[in-house]
Each structure stands twice: as C-alpha cells, then as structure tokens.
C-alpha cells in the first residue's frame, strides 16, 4: 500500500471512530430524561372533594382532575383534551368537562359528548380508603 493511501485510510478510520464517539453519546444524551417523580403515589384527603365537586391536581407532570360524582363516587381523569391538548375544566352546573379551545365536551366518565375530539379522556386508577384517595 502506498504511503499516501495508508495515511488516507488511517485518517478515514480515525475520523469515523471519532465521529461515532460523538454521535452515539449524542443520541443517548438527547433522549429526554425519565420523570424522577414517577411511581411516587399522591394521596388526597376525601374531605377535600365533597360530592358534586372536583379537584385539579398534577400527577407525574400530568394535569388531572379528581371528581366526586354524586352517586357514582370518585374518578380520576386526565385534563388533556384528546383533540389538540388543551386542558379541560369541570363544569359542575352541567356535570361535564369542557375544553375551552374548541368547545369539546366530555361526560364524567371521560367519554366524548360533542366537539372535535374522537377519543375519551384518559382514566387513572384510584385506591380509595376510609379517609384518603391515592393515585399511583
């Protein structure tokens, strides 16, 4: 092999190695970090949510609403509208959840009543004891 060819091959090898040494760590570095708050349960006092009212909370960085439905008990729903991601609000007079962006409406089970959304709101499991409600 000629001297110049050897030099070129060596440089190509070293260059590729250096590039990989940057690109592989960069691909790992750019992955969003895990949520550190994950798996930490959140407990709410039952008395904070009398029947017919709701409490807005953030769990695992997800905005949620815990509703105490008259006759049906507690339910935890995501507040993120399944249409374009705006946050729905609890309308206690009409017993539904309303999205302020495009007037999407959901019932207290999270199902779509009207508006552009086609999917139901995400529902989260709850552990209910005598005094508390625990999420997660």
């Amino acid at each position: 092999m000629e001297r110049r060819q050897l030099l070129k091959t060596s440089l190509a090898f070293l260059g590729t190695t250096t590039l990989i040494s940057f690109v592989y760590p960069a691909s790992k570095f750019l992955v969003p970090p895990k949520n550190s708050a994950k798996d930490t349960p959140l407990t709410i006092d039952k008395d904070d949510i009398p029947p017919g009212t709701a409490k807005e909370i953030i769990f695992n960085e997800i905005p949620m609403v815990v509703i105490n439905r008259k006759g049906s008990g507690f339910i935890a729903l995501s507040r993120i509208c399944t249409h374009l991601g705006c946050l729905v609000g609890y309308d206690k007079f009409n017993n539904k959840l309303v999205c302020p962006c495009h007037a999407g409406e959901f019932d207290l089970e999270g199902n779509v009543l009207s508006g552009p959304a086609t999917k139901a709101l995400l529902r989260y499991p709850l552990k209910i004891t005598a005094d508390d409600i625990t999420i997660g």
Partner: protein
Amino acid sequence: MWGKLVHWIEIRIGLEELVNKHLRLFRTPKGANFWSTLGFVSLIAFIVQAITGIMLLLYYVPHPEYAFQSVQTITNEIPFGWFFRSIHNVGGNLIVAVIIIHLVHVFLRVSYKKPREITWVTGVLMFLLVLLACITGQLLPWHQTGFWQTTVTSTIPSFLPVIGEGISSYMRGGASVSGITLSRFFSFHVVILPVFIVALMILHVLLIRRQGLSTSPAVEPEADASPPEEFRREPHLEGHPCFPHFSVKRSFMVMFYFTVLFFILTFFPNLFLPAEANIQADPLLTPEAIRPAWYFLAPYQLIKTIPNDVMGISLVVIFSMVLLFWPFLDAKDAGRNIRKRPMLLSLGLIVLALWAIFTIWGMYS
C-alpha cells in the same frame, strides 16, 4: 451505490467544481508544515465547543437556584452528560492552548507583516474574545470555584482609575456577583461573544483566502519577500494544492487534537475541575485557595506582585494593546526572517519566558 449518491449530489451542487476552485486551485506555500495547520485546528476546536455548548444548553438552567443542580444532573444523571460536559470543559482549555501556540508560530514566522496586519489583528481579537468566553463560562455552573474566580476577575478592572469601577459594575450588573451577573454572563457566553467570534473568524479566513497563506521566511528568499505596494494574491505555484496535500496534514493535526482531548478526559478528567467545583456557590464563604484558570495565572501573578494595583492592571492592558497592534509597531523596513532579527527574537523569547515564569509562580504562590 456510493458512486450514484456522489453523482446525484454532483449534478445538484457541482461539488467537483467547488473542490477544484476552493481547495485544489488554492495552493499552500512550500514549507507549509504541521504548525501552519493550527488555525484550522482552532476552528475545529471552536466548532467542538459550539456543538457541546448547544447540547449542554438543553439541560442547563441559568438561574442561581437551579444552575448548580442542573449541571450536577447533566454530569450524574443524563446519559453521557459527563462526556459532553467534560469535552466542553477540557476543550475550553485546549482551544486557548492551541490559539496561543498558533499566535507564537505566526509571531516567530513574522507572518503579521504587510499585507497581513488585519489578519493578525482579527486573530488577536478572537483570542481576547475566547478568553472572555472562558471568563463568562466559568460562572455558569454556579460552583464555588467559578463564583469566586468571577468575584476576583470582576474586581480587577476596578483598579483602573476613573473607568474601573464602572467596568466592574457593568460586568457584575451590580455591586457583587449575583443572579444578575449569571444572566449577563450567560447571554455573553452563549450569544454575544460567539456571534462576534464567528464574524471575526469569517473575516480572518476571508483574508487568508484572498492573500494566500504566508510563506515561511526560511524557504522564501528575503529579496522576494518585499512588501507589495498593491493587492497581490500569493499564488504559491512552487507549493502544493491545498487538497489533498495540506488537507491531510490538517486532518492529522485535528486527530492529534482529539487524541489530546480524549487522553485528558480518560486519564485526568478533573484536571480543570478542582474539588471546589463540586460545591454549590456560597456568597458568604470564600474557599481557601482561589486561583484563576492556568491561562490567567501570569497576569494574575503580575498584578499580585506589583505593589501598585493601578500599575499592575495598566501593564496587562498595555501588553494586550501592544499584542493587538504589534504589526503596526514592528519596524516597517525589517525583513521577515526572525533569525536575522536577534532583537525581535529575544523580545519574543523574553515575553514567553516571563509568561511561563509568572504562570508557574502563580500556580505555586
């Protein structure tokens, strides 16, 4: 497959013509050696700093309450965060070293003489701005070392009469180093200084492309080295095309730069991170030994040694000004071969020796 891809690009961009026009037809002079590649290595070192800096920005929070924790998270929790932080930290020191060697080489070659005065001035200005980028960067992790180094650095200008206090106050954004200082240093470090450095870099490279690389006075006969009276691009017909001849040398030196970078990263990862760099900044507790970075040790020790503070800081300012405008201060009629200029050679060596002595003195004092 490869050939097809090259052909596809060739039709659209005309890569062959681009390479021919800007690399093969651009000739490097006879005697252009590995030292002549250091400007290019500095450029690569700057690009490495820019890329790693942008990556660190993804997780860094420029607020006194969160800055330290965000840097700790980058180092300890984000995958390969330690890798990019270390490259940025070590690279920041290496770029200064590369530029210093480049400056010394250009000085000893007397390449700054007519018509290359502006090239020298832009180069020294870039060097000073890189030093400023280092000063502003050291505060961002909000650790004890950076905080107190910044306190000391921002106090030094206050020794200057009349304008001194104003400069210090402007740097800090107040009477002492605080969250306002962090915001100011952050914007200078990530936006203002890089913009100026890139602008100067473009001008620097443009001038080199227009004038051609300077020939070594050891190769070029003194008679041919007379300064031109009108613009003349040095064609270097006696030399080699930039590509592939000189490009291979450049690539070799870039690889050497990465070798040094990774060697320090592997065997001396804390070389530029003292123990205090792992402690959050405490404005009420000064660590026992606060020293500036190695490249500031010489001026720092000089100011410490000279009993009169005004004289100390004035000497540093005068030296910087002389360095910046050196091409206009050097004897106009003198030749470029430094071996035939013992006074200039002695001056250069004395300054280098003094710089080394003051640096070592500052390290152990």
